């Protein structure tokens, strides 16, 4: 296996992009990555998309998007692992370059979610849960994370205010990201007084429905040295799964797939939690960020809420988490999220993150997650 580097990234403004189609959004974003990498063709591509079929009634998008990107005839693969589709696409692109099979690979992620009504979008997202044994009983995604939140509060004393602080922190970071869907600040009070969705989670604990895409270009690290950007390598990659139904887990507050994938990525990168400077986590709901910090080994089990309250993970803290604004403020076009996390880490490591730039960041970690933790993909990126 050879070293793999990222040589270009692309991300456009996220939000409710009514004037743009799925193919428009993807091609525009991928071309930004092409320009950033100074290339005009790739050997192959991977596209993360959770549910183009339910969101826009279009399957077979790997071919569609390669075609509209002017790359018809290359191998193009769509990857699905619910909200971890983008992260998994990145892992497959990475493995393809590492193995020597391809030289230059495009990894993209896309979701066009606002062509359907809120009910239809909720249904599409709900298909990431067990339809026969969770969905059948009226369970929803906010509901699943609400069950995790209540159990975490009971077991560890995590407070309602600590959950709110995750959203406040991520909106603060998002206010410095011009591409974010919601680039503005919120307060703990506004979270605590927002509409209840699934007790104890309120609407400002939840990531939004978003149209958007993200893209990165991968190549052998040797080739990246000839470019003018500092070389950012993918130092480690990990992927693991867990039970599809939340109720099947021995401890619903613990994300075993995140833990397992992280251990793989740390081992491959020869790093541990103490080596990580910046992190992008999958904060689909505020409680998720707290549980993920624990599974990554950044804090002990049960201490995720305290870490946020004490400012450990804030932009000026010891380990800034979700400098991009996270899923909460940046938006969550599900298939694109995992790729966008890598885009943010690269921008930080290249010192291209503008107002939210973290000084001297050398090692970043991206954690992407599907369903209620039924899959997770981790990448460790390092500036050489």
């Amino acid at each position, binding site marked *: 296996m050879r070293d793999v580097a990222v040589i270009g990234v692309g991300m456009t403004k996220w939000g409710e992009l009514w004037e743009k189609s799925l193919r428009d959004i993807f091609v525009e974003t991928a071309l930004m990555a092409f320009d950033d990498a100074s290339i005009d063709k790739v050997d192959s591509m991977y596209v993360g998309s959770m549910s183009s079929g339910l969101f826009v009634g279009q399957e077979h998008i790997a071919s569609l998007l390669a075609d509209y990107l002017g790359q018809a005839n290359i191998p193009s693969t769509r990857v699905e692992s619910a909200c971890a589709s983008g992260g998994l696409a990145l892992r497959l692109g990475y493995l393809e370059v590492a193995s020597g099979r391809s030289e230059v690979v495009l990894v993209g992620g896309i979701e066009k979610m606002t062509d359907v009504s809120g*009910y239809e979008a*909720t249904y599409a997202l709900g298909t990431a849960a067990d339809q026969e044994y969770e*969905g*059948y*009983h009226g369970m*929803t995604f906010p*509901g699943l994370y609400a*069950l*995790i939140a209540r159990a975490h509060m009971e077991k560890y004393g995590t407070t309602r205010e600590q959950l709110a602080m995750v959203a406040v922190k991520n909106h603060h970071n998002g206010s410095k990201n011009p591409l974010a869907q919601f680039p503005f600040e919120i307060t703990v009070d506004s979270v605590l007084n927002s509409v209840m969705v699934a007790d104890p989670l309120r609407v400002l604990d939840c990531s939004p429905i978003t149209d958007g895409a993200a893209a990165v270009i991968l190549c052998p690290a040797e080739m990246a040295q000839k470019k003018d950007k500092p070389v950012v390598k993918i130092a480690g990659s990990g992927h693991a799964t867990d039970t599809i139904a939340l109720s099947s887990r021995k401890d619903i507050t613990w994300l075993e797939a995140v833990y397992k994938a992280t251990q793989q990525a740390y081992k491959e990168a020869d790093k541990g939690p103490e080596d990580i400077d910046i992190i992008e986590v999958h904060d689909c709901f505020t409680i998720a960020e707290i549980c993920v910090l624990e599974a990554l080994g950044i804090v002990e089990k049960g201490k995720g809420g305290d870490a946020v309250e004490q400012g450990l993970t804030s932009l000026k803290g010891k380990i800034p988490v979700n400098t991009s604004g996270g899923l909460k403020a940046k938006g969550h076009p599900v298939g694109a999220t995992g790729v966008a996390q890598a885009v943010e880490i690269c921008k930080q490591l290249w010192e291209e993150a503008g107002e939210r730039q973290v000084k001297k960041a050398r090692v970043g970690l991206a954690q992407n997650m599907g369903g209620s933790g039924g899959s997770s993909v981790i990448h460790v990126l390092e500036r050489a």
Partner: protein
Amino acid sequence: MTTPSRYWREIPQRYRLEANKCQSCGTVNFPPRLVCPECQKRDLVATKLAEKGKVISYTIIRVPPHQFIDQAPYAVGIVKLDDGVNLMAQIVDCDFEDLKVGMKVRIEFRKIFDEGEAGILCYGYKFVPD
């Protein structure tokens, strides 16, 4: 979407709480499985779920899927049954303020939702305070 065949084939679990038990490690699986997730053995025999247990966690769904609009808000929880199985279902016949982690509940057979005038009436299990 529930179709008649999809609904019909889940009836043994949803109406009669049919589960299976691993003869090798004793794990009870619900729904019944072809291979034991704990020990990967395939020697599984039919059994029935325990009907009582304690609430591990619960939530109140206020923004429901469209089949449940008439029922919202409603409580859904995960219950650890006396045979060790963790089961998700609605918790009914209980005021929301009386719900708590650790409360004792039992399973009752109830209507879960209906699919409108021409659709299927969907039945199954719910929890009630015990």
